[in-house]
């Protein structure tokens, strides 16, 4: 019974991935006539090659490969900075409560509900005034800002679950803000860092809107090419290439999930959810 239910549930989750993989391995003629769930009669890797290195975006026919390293260049600093800031926030909110902290935190949570599209104009103006519009640092800053609400919430919950005596003992020993953060808090909070990394990698890697609005073509992330491949409506839609492109783009976060799924749950279990 238990396994039966789980099995049926799993079909629901697996089906889309199955269809994506199968379709990406078929040729166009087979897709037109065949059943989308059937495995390919003739396996072809053509769509994958095309999606990676041949599909055109306007004049540039080098597929997704063009955006891959850009995505990495955006991803690494954004993930590091946003997590660093959010973890310090959480730590300060829990252990160094200052007047008005709750107000700021509430505003942050409110911020997590704001649709990104609404904030485009204010952010454009802000970055323009700071003189970093259109640069990589501008985009990293935007990711840090919009990653802050949920991450701060996670870190805050995590730190508040750690025994307070540890912190107090360190204070008595005369350790300051940063000393406690680096020597005591950091080593104890690896699980929650794993969770944060996973969340941020997924969010930032999949981001299209910020990547395209706040940068220039030479640092456009991979999702821009994905959009260009998938959204070109004229002519015949090459479903197999679309699916291959989709899978290729999703590969980085997917790999991280498959590798670290266990750590993810353990991280959350380690206290991320204890309020």
């Amino acid at each position: 019974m238990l396994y039966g239910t789980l099995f049926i549930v799993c079909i629901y989750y697996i089906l889309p991935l199955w269809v994506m993989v199968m379709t990406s391995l078929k040729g166009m003629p087979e897709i037109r006539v065949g059943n989308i769930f059937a495995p390919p009669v003739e396996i072809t890797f053509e769509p994958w090659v095309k999606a990676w290195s041949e599909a055109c975006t306007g004049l540039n026919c080098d597929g997704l490969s063009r955006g891959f390293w850009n995505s990495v260049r955006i991803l690494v600093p954004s993930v590091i900075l946003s997590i660093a800031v959010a973890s310090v926030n959480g730590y300060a909110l829990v252990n160094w409560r200052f007047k008005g902290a709750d107000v700021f935190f509430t505003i942050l949570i409110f911020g997590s509900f704001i649709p990104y599209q609404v904030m485009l104009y204010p952010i454009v103006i802000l970055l323009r005034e700071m003189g970093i519009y259109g640069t990589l640092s501008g985009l990293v800053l935007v990711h840090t800002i919009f990653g802050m609400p949920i991450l701060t919430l996670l870190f805050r919950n995590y730190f508040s679950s750690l025994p307070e005596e540890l912190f107090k003992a360190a204070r008595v020993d005369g350790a300051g803000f940063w000393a406690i953060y680096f020597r005591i808090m950091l080593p104890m909070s690896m699980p929650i860092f794993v969770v944060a990394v996973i969340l941020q990698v997924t969010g930032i890697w999949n981001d299209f809107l910020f990547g395209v609005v706040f940068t220039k073509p030479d640092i456009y992330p991979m999702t821009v090419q994905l959009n260009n491949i998938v959204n070109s409506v004229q002519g015949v839609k090459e479903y197999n290439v679309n699916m291959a492109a989709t899978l290729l783009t999703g590969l980085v976060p997917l790999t991280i999930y498959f590798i670290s799924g266990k750590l993810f749950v353990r991280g959350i279990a380690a206290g991320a959810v204890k309020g």
Partner: protein
Amino acid sequence: MADGARRNPLFRNLTAKLAAVPMVLTALVVFAGGTVWTVVYSFTSSKLLPKLKWVGLDQYERLWGASRWLVAIENLLIYGVLSLVLTISIGFMLAVLLDQKIRFEDTFRTIMLYPFALSFIVTGLVWQWLLNPEFGVPSVIKAMGWESFELDLLHDPKIVLYGLLVAGLWQGTGFVMCIMLAGLRGIDEDIWKACRVDGIPRWKTYLFVIVPMMRPVFITTLVIVASGIVKLYDLVVAQTSGGPGNASQVPAMYVYDYMFQAQNLGQGFAASSMMLVSVLIVLIPWAYLEFGGRKRG
């Protein structure tokens, strides 16, 4: 040093305050500032560029007279309530299933969690495919012999929202399940033992003992899921583009379309202000409970 701190409380824990500067700036300048800016400009007739030409409540009058906006609000309410209830209850039930000390737990969990790694755009595209009546799941059911089977979750305006729901649940329940599972694992074994001794049935234990104990978990989940629902945009654009007709419109789409396609910033800002206000209405009681309760305790 202690004397100095007492004399001027502003400089107490100076480092901690400095470290919180990024958060304070983000909260004040970006989120609060951006919101105020948006609300202010919603009272103007700004078109392509923001301009301070006041028109009073005109934009709001027009907004609440627009049938598309009303449909969008109604859709978000229906989708939001269903999605919130289903995501959390399904997530919880899956977590309970996985918590029964089963084999292959890792495999099951990974399978349920992986959709979360994919973007909403991808989710929308894949489900658009799967739900297609000509070659998707419905056609397969027909081919299996159930000739009269008709379920068009993409093109039937009455049920198109449920098509979105199917895709949304696929993407989001795994993550909620993980949070819930983590919460369940955090429950002390002794509580289970005590309940067993008292002879309380398992399902009752879950419902009346465990769920109340997991209140913080539910609150965290609620914030995360609800914030996703309010922002719902990409999934709709990718799966149905708001169609057929206006049947699957959502507020974020209205905002975006009027800001950029219609080049009527004032109208877009008025719509987003309404969204933000409704968020505030939900959030203020939450903040009161969260912080007010703790201070007393």
